[in-house]
């Protein structure tokens, strides 16, 4: 019996190891191969467990059936435990679980690896669609996300209204798009093609229809597309529609900035960490939080870039930041506010 079950489970394991697409999906981006490997490992271990458990249960049930003519007082073997057996069926699962945990942690650390990002972009969910923002492209692009092949991509996802999900099955990655929160997924596309982006959190009546296209282009095709959308062909760097006159920040007054922050900013921004949102994010650690995402303009959080947003305002999917004119502040005020924010970030 044990041998028969061994043959079945080994056959199942060989199937899971050699099958080209264990999830029935192509691998279109970098972490998908690792996820598939982990899945194969789980499927092999799971096959052994299922085959042995189900096999022995069925075998015991048939082999130890009460004989037809058994007397009414026919009973089974009166044993209560078998310490050696119990020791092993505790230790073996523990070892398997430890192995699984280690493998998962390793894969997770590569998924969360931030090194070598080339394209950083945003995906915004709304009822019922997706739009995508690229550096240096002024307007968000609906329904179609283009990425260049063999290029590490970072996607910050968020939502304009309720929680949505961002899932590309062929990439094997998923993040919830939560209003007021920015989640991040990173991948490197490896296979040119068009894939589906699917919403995986219930978001309203038409949730089932909420989808978009992920187009993995060759690098040349991506550059062509990017230029056609109004980008200038190089990714990253400074830009967005917050570009404009630089503001002289020297000599900003912290106290004056604090007073002004109370009047002009605190209705929408807290001085807590980024995640402590009111309408906009908390600004207390805008310059010293190493995990701080890019500014709303797509720029790195530096004093000069913050000053640019204060000066010119910003209008996008995540929200609206009124300009200096709308807020009735001048360049000196901006310098004072930035000085105040810099002082906060030193605590």
């Amino acid at each position, binding site marked *: *019996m*044990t041998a028969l079950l061994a043959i079945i489970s080994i056959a199942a394991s060989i199937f899971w190891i050699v099958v080209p697409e264990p*999830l*029935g*999906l192509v691998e279109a981006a970098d972490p998908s191969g690792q*996820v598939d490997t*982990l*899945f194969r490992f*789980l499927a092999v271990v799971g096959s052994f*467990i299922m085959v042995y458990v189900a096999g*022995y*249960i069925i*075998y*015991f049930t048939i*082999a*130890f059936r009460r004989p037809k003519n*058994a*007397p*009414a007082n*026919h*009973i*089974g*073997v*009166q*044993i*209560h*435990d*078998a310490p050696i*057996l*119990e020791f092993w*069926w*505790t230790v073996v699962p523990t070892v398997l*679980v430890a192995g*699984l945990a280690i493998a*998962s942690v390793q894969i*997770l650390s590569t*998924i*969360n690896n931030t090194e070598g990002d080339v394209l950083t972009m945003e995906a915004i969910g709304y009822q019922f669609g997706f739009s995508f923002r690229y550096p240096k492209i002024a307007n968000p692009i609906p329904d179609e996300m283009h990425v260049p092949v063999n290029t590490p991509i970072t996607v910050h996802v968020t939502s304009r209204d*309720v929680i949505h999900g961002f*899932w590309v*099955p062929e990439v*094997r*990655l*998923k*993040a*919830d798009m*939560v*209003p007021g929160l920015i*989640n991040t997924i990173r991948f490197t596309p490896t296979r040119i093609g068009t894939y589906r982006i*699917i919403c*995986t959190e*219930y978001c*309203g*009546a*038409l*949730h*089932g229809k909420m*989808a978009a296209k992920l187009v993995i282009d060759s690098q040349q095709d991506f550059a062509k597309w990017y230029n056609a959308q109004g980008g200038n062909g190089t990714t990253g760097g400074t830009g967005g529609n917050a570009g404009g006159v630089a503001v002289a920040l020297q000599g900003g007054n912290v106290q004056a900035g604090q007073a002004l922050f109370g009047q002009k900013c605190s209705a929408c921004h807290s001085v807590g960490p980024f995640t402590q*949102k009111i*309408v906009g994010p908390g600004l207390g650690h805008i310059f010293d939080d190493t995990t701080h995402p890019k500014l709303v303009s797509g720029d790195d959080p530096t004093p000069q870039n913050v000053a640019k947003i204060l000066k010119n305002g910003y209008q996008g999917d995540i929200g609206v930041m009124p300009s200096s004119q709308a807020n009735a502040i001048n360049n000196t005020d901006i310098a004072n506010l930035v000085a105040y924010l810099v002082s906060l970030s030193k605590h």
Partner: protein
Amino acid sequence: MAVASTTTTVAPHAVLDHIHPEPTSFIRKYIFSIDHKVIGVQYMITGMIFFVFAGLLAELIRVQLMHNDGRFVSPETYNQIYSMHGSAMVWMVIIPLVTGGFGNFVMPLQIGARDVAFPWLNLAAFWMFPVAGLLLFASFAVGAPDAGWTEYPPVSLQGPAGTSLWCIAIFLIGISSTLTGINFIVTIVKMRAPGMTFTRMPLFVWAQLATAGLSMIATTALAAALLALFLERTFGIPFYDPRHGGSPILWQHMFWFYSHPAVYIMILPAFGIISEVLPTFARKPIFGYKMIAFSSISIALLGFMVWAHHMFTSGLVPWLQLPFMIMTMIVAIPTGIKIFSWMATLWGGSIELSPAMLFAIGFLITFTFGGVTGVFLSAVPVDLHAHGTYFVVAHFHYVLYGGSVFGIFSGIYYWWPKMTGRLMSETLGKWHFWVTFVAFNCTFLPMHWLGLEGMPRRVGIYADTHDAVFWNQVASISSFFLAAATLLLFANMIYSFTKGKKAGPNPWGARTLEWMIPSPPPYYNFKKIPAVLAAPYDFGNPLPYIGLERVPGAEGPAVTRTPAPAPAT
């Protein structure tokens, strides 16, 4: 203290012989009864009625999904249907059946008590249940909740008016569940018959003890979350809406801090049922009694430390994913110990394949499968792919239908003669099992690859990629057989009432205390409270009870030892 210590001696105690008179009016006897057995049966009937409605909703879901273009009902209606199916199955069917139903009827009998510790509290807890159930289903009149049984805000803040009714109904059933938890803990700790030490309790009682602890502690978190959702919907107090400073993630933490333990509230009593049925029909002591009891408690404790594994995609910081992933994987170890112990209980048995036993054996196979896919989902990289897909739907139906509902079916076949005094038809019961088992697997197995290949949950319209329509049709047609199989159970109940043979006190030759008294048990359960000398599963030994009133037929066949069969290879 010297006086109290006398109750711990093994001799039956004269004080325990006082019996309260039975109420005479119909209302006090059958409607507002404080008898745990009547309340247990009331839970069973009410739960089974809601089971029928929730099952019909499931069939509507399956009809819609036979085609991918949403031609059967509108998206709005579809969303209400599956949300109500989930809510009703969790809160109005499985939890009330396994705790209020089986727990109330069986547990006090098994510990040799005349009732639970707080019978009036029990009455109050029961009547909250039909009220909550009716409120929940009444929400269809004003637009039922549509955001799934999890009702994540902010979308649930936009939901129809019935979402607020949902909050009230679930709040109410939550209070009922908490009260039952308190009641059961006190009953089990304080009211066991003399000599029934913790290590002599039937395993069903251990399971109810672990479950009661979970209900008592976890449900309060749900109550707070529901209250906040209700206040936000009604008065606009911003707990969850980020536009006004709330946090949608807060709901997820509060909800899953309850709802993960709730999974164990639904499955631990089923474990308890299996642990009674297997030894009885294998005529063997349960293998590894202490390890099974210990693993129930450790699963209950671990259950509080894994809630955020439902939130791996929600934006947990990576370092927080790790402890939740590892704790979740650890749950597999005590669960595995249980499965292996049940397998070992079958080995060398004298196995009688009654319907209760068939469902228990079916449970072992389907629940193990659900457990294995649960480990898949615990690994964060796999969960990032499978979260929110039909893979998850398949997984939890293997656990909740292949686990809890199979356990409930097994328990119904096992304790039906005790509840009604009549036997069911074995033939009909076996048909019920085989059709259910095959149809169940054909319904939910394809959902695994549907999900992995790209079908998300909670959609009435879906893309026909990877033969999605074909596999959904397989699932739908199988689900119609699954529903039809359940009709066999109801037919069997009717058969039993009309033509069923008298069961006698102990039709299965079982050894726990509930089988030592007539069927159905008298109002007072035990004329004399027995004293307990040993654990109940030693079929080779004389019954471990003294001081029981002798009921003809209760002791089962006289025992003789059979030689051990050759070990399996």
